[in-house]
């Protein structure tokens, strides 16, 4: 699903973001990416949907050569991925339904299919009755669930979540993790960068720890490994 070999990335200011990174993530895995701020987690995530291109190495995602792909192929790489951010990134002047449908409109999906898929993901995230609300009428947890619905509405093979619970209280966070578990159990690969020790420790999934751009730990059933 994701294959990284000897990935190097240095930013223009000379900062080394990733240093000889080797990772393989298989279909259906649930992976936590941990490490202190600035360790290279964000760069790692951005490589996957090609917001950042590595300087050297081999990177394939969903069977696509991310490094050598033409710029015009990037949209098609991203259609196979669902991306979720800490700050939700919803459109404030669109309703819940429209925010989710938007992800399908822009890849020109048929209208009937949009209706069916949006209703089905609204069920998954438990927001069926709020489909007409605007984002500012929702709590943080609900907004993040809309963002998740938007990320999975196109049936991506991989969901990439960058600190999805970073702005949420523990109880709400567990609600979000519950949704991720359900998505994962249907076969979707999940890569999630997080600082949430409680969640990582409790779930006992694969943990990849990054420090100074290097992978310092990769355990198939690990804990957070740092003191808060």
């Amino acid at each position, binding site marked *: 699903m994701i294959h990284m070999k000897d990935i190097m990335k240095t930013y223009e200011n000379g900062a080394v973001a990733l240093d000889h990174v080797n990772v393989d993530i298989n279909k259906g895995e649930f992976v936590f990416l941990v490490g202190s701020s600035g360790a290279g987690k964000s760069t790692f995530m951005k490589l996957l949907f090609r917001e950042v291109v590595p300087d050297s190495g081999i990177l394939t995602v969903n069977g696509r050569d991310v490094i050598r792909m033409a710029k015009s192929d990037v*949209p098609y790489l*991203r*259609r196979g991925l669902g991306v979720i951010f800490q700050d939700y*990134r919803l*459109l404030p002047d669109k309703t819940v339904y429209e925010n989710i449908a*938007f*992800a399908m409109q*822009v890849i*020109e999906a048929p209208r009937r299919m949009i209706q069916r898929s949006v209703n089905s993901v609204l069920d998954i995230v438990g927001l069926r009755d709020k489909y007409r609300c605007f984002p500012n009428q929702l709590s943080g947890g609900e907004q993040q669930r809309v963002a998740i619905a938007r990320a999975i509405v196109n049936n991506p093979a991989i969901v990439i979540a960058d600190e999805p619970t970073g702005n949420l209280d523990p109880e709400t966070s567990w609600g979000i993790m519950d949704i991720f578990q359900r998505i994962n159990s249907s076969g979707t690969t999940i890569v999630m960068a997080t600082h949430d020790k409680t969640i990582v420790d409790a779930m006992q999934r694969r943990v990849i720890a990054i420090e100074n751009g290097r992978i310092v730990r990769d355990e198939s059933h690990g804990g957070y490994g740092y003191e808060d």
Partner: protein
Amino acid sequence: MKIRTLEYFVREVFLSLKRNNWMSVASVGTVAVSLFIFGMFLMLVLNMNKMAESLESQVQINVYLEEGTTSSEIRSLEAELNDMQGVEKVTFVSKDEAMERFKERLGDQSSILDALDDTNPLPDGFEVMITQPELVETAAKNIEQHKHVESAKYGQDVMEHLFDITRLIRFFGLVLMLFLAGATLFIISNTIRLTVFARRKEIAIMKYVGATDWFIRWPFMMEGMVLGLFGGILANIILRFGYSALVSEIYSALAFFPLIPEQPFLNYISIVVVFGGMAIGAMGSTISLKRFLEV
């Protein structure tokens, strides 16, 4: 492009125009003003060109013959001139005709000719029309080589000045039009930039969920084109009325003045202004969008 995508684009464009209503009005206005000035100069340059062309095409050489040239010599000379390269037409002007014309030109003051006491100092001659203005100088020199020719004159200085002026007008017209096109481009791209900036989050999300650059670009290009279209139509209306008024004004005062007739000239101008506006609108939005597509 699919129909429902087009629907979506059109909805987006009109929402955006509505959302930035004052900015949209202001940019249609500025586009109209720029295109109006642009159109005015286009008309001016084209009319100047036409004027220069008609003056250039009136180029003729006045040939004066030696005193005492016989009529048979005149006829053979006329034939020789007609055979020369670049000569369009040769007209004989007898000394009497020349005097008549001279009197006409003097008009009220023709009485000064009374001093000549019926003697006519003007020579017989030819008016030689030349096909191309560039050939005039050589033709005049060649004609002077002929027997019985006293001199062959043409408006050398006037011609040279005319060429200079025409060149100058063409050059400045072009520079000014390029400048105005650039200014219009700048204004439209700034208006679209506001829209793009207001919707940068939306653009970023579109990129993350896999929209192609063209899908993102289209609504903005259409918005720019709509602004250019409205501005162009407005400028076009003013230009048409203005030119028609000018033409009728000038025809009543100076009937011989060689202005380009309204039809089909105005239709060409309309096409250039309106389509030019749309093209500049599309280009302006592409420029302002470029940075935001780099996600």
